[in-house]
């Protein structure tokens, strides 16, 4: 009886020692897994492009495995916010500019300065980027993310469709835009129901904030003052723009019915299937519409032009900017590996890949200036020029609520629940209240 017991004890000791040693051995051998979350993972063109980049990264970094976690764009901020408040969330994730300031305030983004200091200093790194882009991720002397891609919203139009109704050039003013839209609207079969329209606006959830305000800005107005302290919705330009859009929808009827539910995706589907001839979109619309409908021949059929203005040739801000940036969760146990991934996904080779695959520009000045393929493309040149006439939407924590308030007022005007002036006045008052509320 004694003999086996001793044996057992010795055996147990051996197992315990093995168990203690195991994690050390395992850490050296087994790769760390990084979760990477991005709304683009769910988009076919971007999804392929990202998968290729991950494969490359994993072959260069055999100690890291990536687990992609797609998130729906419209639900993204709420999903992330809930996860971070619950102490979870992906290791590395992408945001566009809207919620970045809110996330910094809540402490949900890791300051990248320590990593940058090891690689030539944060200031030198930051100086490679266009100034507005680096401002989005910078706060209180820290750098809370790495800008990845950057594009303005422009007017996309179907050139053959416009020519077929006698419009030779892209409309440069809002009056010309209305006229072109009216000509495009009508039945495709004589006597049939109207099934072609001039344009659409994104008035549903998911993409409103980026696209609708170009009308406001094209008229010379804006939602907030440049320092984001007061509402500009009481200005004549805002009233004019608001009335103009409501008129396009309700009186001119140049948009497909159901416009209040149209999100960015539905607008692109309309464009891809030739239901509409014009839409406000960003450069990514090329690969996406090309993939949606091969018959469209998007790269040749669709052309881009600056957002129309009230007077042609005016020199004010007329459009909005979109930026995608990559961020690290402060709670990640693998911050170093996460930083390697972020650096890889924003390096020069990848920046060129994002342009080639997805038609998006880099926020690094040098790449746009030096990459021949960007220099050769007329549409890319226009995008670069438009950067001078573009600004981000307000970079403040209250922005999501302000945006939603504004959107709902527009709905009230379109559904005739209120007159456009009433709806706008209510929106102005509510936005002021939100701005004054201490948060």
């Amino acid at each position: 009886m004694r003999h086996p017991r001793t044996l057992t004890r010795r055996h147990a000791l051996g197992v315990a020692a093995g168990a203690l040693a195991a994690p050390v051995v395992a850490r050296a051998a087994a790769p760390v897994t990084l979760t990477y979350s991005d709304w683009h993972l769910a988009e076919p063109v971007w999804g392929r492009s990202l998968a290729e980049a991950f494969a490359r990264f994993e072959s260069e970094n055999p100690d890291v495995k990536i687990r992609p976690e797609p998130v729906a764009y419209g639900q993204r901020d709420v999903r992330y916010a809930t996860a971070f408040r619950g102490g979870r969330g992906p290791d590395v994730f992408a945001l566009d500019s809207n919620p970045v300031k809110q996330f910094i305030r809540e402490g949900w983004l890791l300051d990248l300065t320590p990593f940058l200091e090891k690689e030539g200093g944060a200031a030198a790194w930051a100086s490679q980027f266009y100034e507005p882009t680096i401002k989005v991720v910078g706060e209180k002397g820290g750098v809370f993310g790495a800008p990845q891609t950057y594009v303005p919203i422009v007017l996309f139009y179907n050139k053959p469709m416009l020519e077929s109704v006698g419009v030779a050039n892209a409309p440069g003013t809002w009056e010309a835009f209305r006229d072109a839209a009216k000509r495009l609207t009508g039945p495709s079969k004589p006597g049939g129901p109207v099934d072609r329209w001039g344009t659409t606006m994104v008035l549903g959830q998911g993409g409103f904030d980026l696209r609708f305000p170009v009308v406001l800005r094209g008229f010379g107005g804006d939602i907030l003052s440049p320092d984001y302290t007061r509402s500009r919705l009481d200005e004549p330009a805002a009233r004019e723009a608001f009335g103009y859009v409501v008129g396009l929808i309700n009186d001119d009827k140049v948009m497909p019915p159901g416009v209040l539910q149209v999100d960015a995706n539905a607008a692109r589907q309309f464009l891809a299937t030739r239901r509409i001839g014009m839409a406000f979109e960003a450069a990514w619309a090329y690969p996406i519409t090309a993939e949606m409908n091969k018959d469209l021949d998007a790269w040749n059929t669709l052309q881009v032009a600056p957002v129309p203005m009230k007077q042609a040739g005016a020199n004010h801000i007329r459009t909005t900017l979109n930026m995608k940036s990559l961020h690290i969760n402060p709670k990640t146990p693998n911050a170093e590996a996460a930083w390697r991934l972020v650096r890889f996904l924003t390096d020069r080779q990848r920046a060129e890949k994002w342009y080639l695959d997805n038609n998006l520009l880099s926020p690094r000045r040098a790449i746009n200036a030096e990459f021949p393929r960007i220099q050769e493309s007329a549409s890319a040149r226009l995008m670069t020029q438009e950067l001078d006439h573009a600004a981000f939407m307000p970079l403040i924590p209250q922005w999501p609520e302000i945006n939603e308030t504004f959107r709902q007022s527009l709905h009230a005007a379109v559904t005739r629940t209120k007159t456009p002036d009433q709806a706008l006045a209510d929106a102005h008052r509510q936005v002021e209240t939100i701005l004054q509320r201490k948060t």
Partner: protein
Amino acid sequence: MRPSSGEDAPGADRRERWLPFLFVGPAILLLLAVLGLPAVTAVLQSFNLVWVREPGFSLDAYRQLATDPQFATTLSTTALYVGLVVSLHLTIGLAVALALNADLPAKWLFRVAAILPWTVPDVISGIIWRFVFDTLPGMANAILLRLGAVDQPVDWLGSPSLAFFGVVTAEVWRGYPFVMLILLAGLQAIPAHLYEAAAIDGAGAWQSFRYVTLPALRNMVIVALVLDVIWEARLFGTVYGMTGGGPGDATQLVSTLTFRQYFEFFNPAYASAMAVVLAVTMLIVAIPYLRVTMSRNA
């Protein structure tokens, strides 16, 4: 209902005294921990006391509620919605229950078809109806255009009144089979001799419905009514999946607005105040039900 017995039998000893708590204990503990604690916390949150940005007793949330036009609209939308949905559930539920209670060939097939919508999760039902009412590729407009009833597509979810009608249609569809099921159970329990007696007295179909069926169903109807009001008032998924509360605030319910304030705009105190108002209203509505059930089971 039989009186519970055995508890005061002469042999009942000390063990028998704590025995009942062993049986009901786990359920009560779960209820207190998972429902009770959060409910109390929500009340504290609404007074700005715990888990808010700057804790300290305040009635601000309730004051803000009292003057918030959006909340007032949402409250009346919710009341109208619950009233409409529940009365349609009862009407349609009763009609279908009566039809299903008749002698039918292939009865189980009708019964399956009748109950099918109830098995669809609420958010999924919202998504399905959203596509039925979609302006361009939706079914409703496809049929109306084919029949020539309209010559341009109807913007179902883009008009406040039509969107409200759409949400009601969806929730009536999903919810009435359950009410029907309860009423069918009630119908089947009505003894046949009552109808025979009524027939002998010369009662027609309407009279036997009016004087035999309805009185016999009275209690079932009350229970179904109260349960349904409670379920509909706290419903979240249908609207969340179908309209997200839009257009504007036309289909916004207290439940979706609360979710939005809590999880989208990070205003826990305000959100909790809304939810407390909803809960208190529901408790008041449910008092008759509580009274009836408790007295019957005491």
